[in-house]
């Protein structure tokens, strides 16, 4: 029996992975070949999807960009023995894109069958929880603090401090809430880990529950990820059946359960207080802070709200020890960051590396520059609320503080590359348009300012009173930045202001043809 791996990851499916699976099954039956098809997560070399791997005595060998139509020729070439073919990639472990990574959060993603508990345990699954159970809850919180882990959702708040606040707040009930409302364009790490290694997220939630004294965890997943919901829902069932969730987690007297909740297309619900409102069954309107959710969160109870990546990293922090994690990274940005390289880029994918690379290394060395082959002009870092960074700033170090210093945002680690055909006025306009569509409406600067921003940018585009309108737009951005409760209104000005500052020619040249008419 030969094991053949074809990812169930949405990115692989989007390129026909399911048709490849059907073709392999059909061809194997016709040729009498004994094949077991395993649906693994994605390795993250997304430009090679669907990436089919075959298990050979010499390790797993890969074939990239496989289409259903290629399957017969793969059989002809005897790919089941790992033979060469025009689509051969070799071993993923030998690929330069893989070799430069330090896979901690994603160590199992793409390797195991995400719903096989045996394979999960074979690669260290459960060790983190076992070690956590050997410590007191307070020592677990201290371990997380020692690791230096900061919230991977975007704000970068120290996870250990958040947990300690929840643990120390007297209450009859506490909650663990995982924010899987991954709405930023250019990000897909939450989706990938929930499809490729869902048990890690659940194990991390369980450790969190034990550390802070919570017995219930919710995962709030965006509705745009229907297939993620299927895989993750099954993962919860598998762990319940195996006694990893329930009244006696792994035979202990600690009770913990996890429930999956689905959002309904509101970007603002990725903001933690808006998410909590939505979980409670209300409009996703942002709450004023304080009180912070760690003091009064879900149903007014102390609540840990953490991003998927933060929580999915927890088991590995306990398995390897906090120091191992803290030893990676630079400055106050400890550990690794799963970078998501996307947009107009040659080698798009997920690449988990220690903090500290320059933006240029990420975009050009790892990403290979623009997919179109044209020069790169800008990179948007951190989603629709993140700044556009020009090529002259590619020396910027990927680190929370270095980005903040230059008015940029790491956010959730997504990078969207644009080539020189991009019209930065249109991108600035879209930033405002998106804010207008997604504003929850609580704060006037965000609700109305974003619409006025679109109108003002349109006037600039039409060459009307360009200088005065640019001054007005900058002023509006300041009002939104300082007059909004949450990051939607508060950060929507970043892409606009960065476009204005770094690409003024896209805003000003327009007045010339208009004036000449």
């Amino acid at each position: 029996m030969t094991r053949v791996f074809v990812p169930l990851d949405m990115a692989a499916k989007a390129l026909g992975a399911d048709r490849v699976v059907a073709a392999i099954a059909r061809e194997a039956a016709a040729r009498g070949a004994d094949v077991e098809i395993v649906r693994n997560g994605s390795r993250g070399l997304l430009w090679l999807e669907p990436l089919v791997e075959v298990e050979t005595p010499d390790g797993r060998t890969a074939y990239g960009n496989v289409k259903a139509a290629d399957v017969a020729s793969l059989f002809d070439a005897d790919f089941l023995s790992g033979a060469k073919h025009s689509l051969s990639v070799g071993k993923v472990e030998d690929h330069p894109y893989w070799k430069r990574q330090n896979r901690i959060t994603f160590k199992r993603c793409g390797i195991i069958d995400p719903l096989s508990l045996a394979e999960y345990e074979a690669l260290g699954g459960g060790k983190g929880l076992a070690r956590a159970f050997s410590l007191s809850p307070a020592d677990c919180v201290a371990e997380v603090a020692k690791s230096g882990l900061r919230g991977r959702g975007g704000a970068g708040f120290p996870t250990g401090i958040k947990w300690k606040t929840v643990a120390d707040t007297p209450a009859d009930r506490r909650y663990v809430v995982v924010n899987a409302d991954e709405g930023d364009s250019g990000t897909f790490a939450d989706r990938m880990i929930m499809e490729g290694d869902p048990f890690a997220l659940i194990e991390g939630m369980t450790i969190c529950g034990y550390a802070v004294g919570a017995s219930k965890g919710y995962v709030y997943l965006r509705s745009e990820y229907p297939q993620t919901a299927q895989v993750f829902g099954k993962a919860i069932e598998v762990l319940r059946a195996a006694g990893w969730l329930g009244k006696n987690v792994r035979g202990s007297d600690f009770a913990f359960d996890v429930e999956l909740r689905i959002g309904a297309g509101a970007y603002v619900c990725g903001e933690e207080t808006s998410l909590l409102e939505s979980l409670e069954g209300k409009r996703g309107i942002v709450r004023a802070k304080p009180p912070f959710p760690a003091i009064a969160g879900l149903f007014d109870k102390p609540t840990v709200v953490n991003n998927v990546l933060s929580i999915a990293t927890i088991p590995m922090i306990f398995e390897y020890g906090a120091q191992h994690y803290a030893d990676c990274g630079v400055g106050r940005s400890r550990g690794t960051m799963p970078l998501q390289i996307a947009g107009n880029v040659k080698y798009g994918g997920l690449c988990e590396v220690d903090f500290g690379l320059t933006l240029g290394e990420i975009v050009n060395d790892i990403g290979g520059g623009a997919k179109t082959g044209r020069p790169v002009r800008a990179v948007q870092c951190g989603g629709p609320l993140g700044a556009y960074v020009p090529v002259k700033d590619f020396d910027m170090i990927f680190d929370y503080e270095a980005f903040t210093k230059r008015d940029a945002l790491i956010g959730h680690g997504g990078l969207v590359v644009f080539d020189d055909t991009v019209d930065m006025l249109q991108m600035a306009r879209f930033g405002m348009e998106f804010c207008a569509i997604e504003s929850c409406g609580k704060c006037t600067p965000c609700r109305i300012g974003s619409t006025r921003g679109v109108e003002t940018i349109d006037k600039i585009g039409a060459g009307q009173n360009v200088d005065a309108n640019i001054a007005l737009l900058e002023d509006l951005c300041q009002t939104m930045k300082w007059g909004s409760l949450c990051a939607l209104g508060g950060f929507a000005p970043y892409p606009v202001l960065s476009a204005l500052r770094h690409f003024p020619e896209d805003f000003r040249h327009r007045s010339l043809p208009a004036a000449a008419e």
Partner: protein
Amino acid sequence: MSGAAVAFDAARAQEIIDAHLGLEGPAMPILHAIQDEFGCVPEAVVPQIAEALNVSRAEMHGVVTFYHDFRREPAGRHVLKLCRAESCQSMGSERLHQEFLARHKLDWHHTSPDGALTVEAVYCLGLCAHSPSALFDGEPIGCVDSQRLDEIVSEAQRT
């Protein structure tokens, strides 16, 4: 996703509502389940949910209308969601979409007159290494081009 929805039935709606009342904060799961059953969240069900959750009709109306996903009327037989977010824009999605909508006389958040296809904008499907991307009846599609979009329209009209 597509038009397998059944006509509204208050008794069936009540069953769905009751099945979720044991949950903490059951409103969103109820609304999703209602939409899965009836293809939308009909006006008539709003007071029914409000009553069950002991909130006002106005509050429940507010919840339903806050979220982009909840429809007030069923969609067409097929739903095409096109990603308009930045990553897809970096690969030319804006022009692709404009030309596609014009070519087939479609519009955002509208259903074609024959009831075959509803086109909706979404902001990121998490397929950003394969931009532009789309979701057709819940199935993801990467590296979308005009030919693929035309095939989708033909498929929607046929089935």
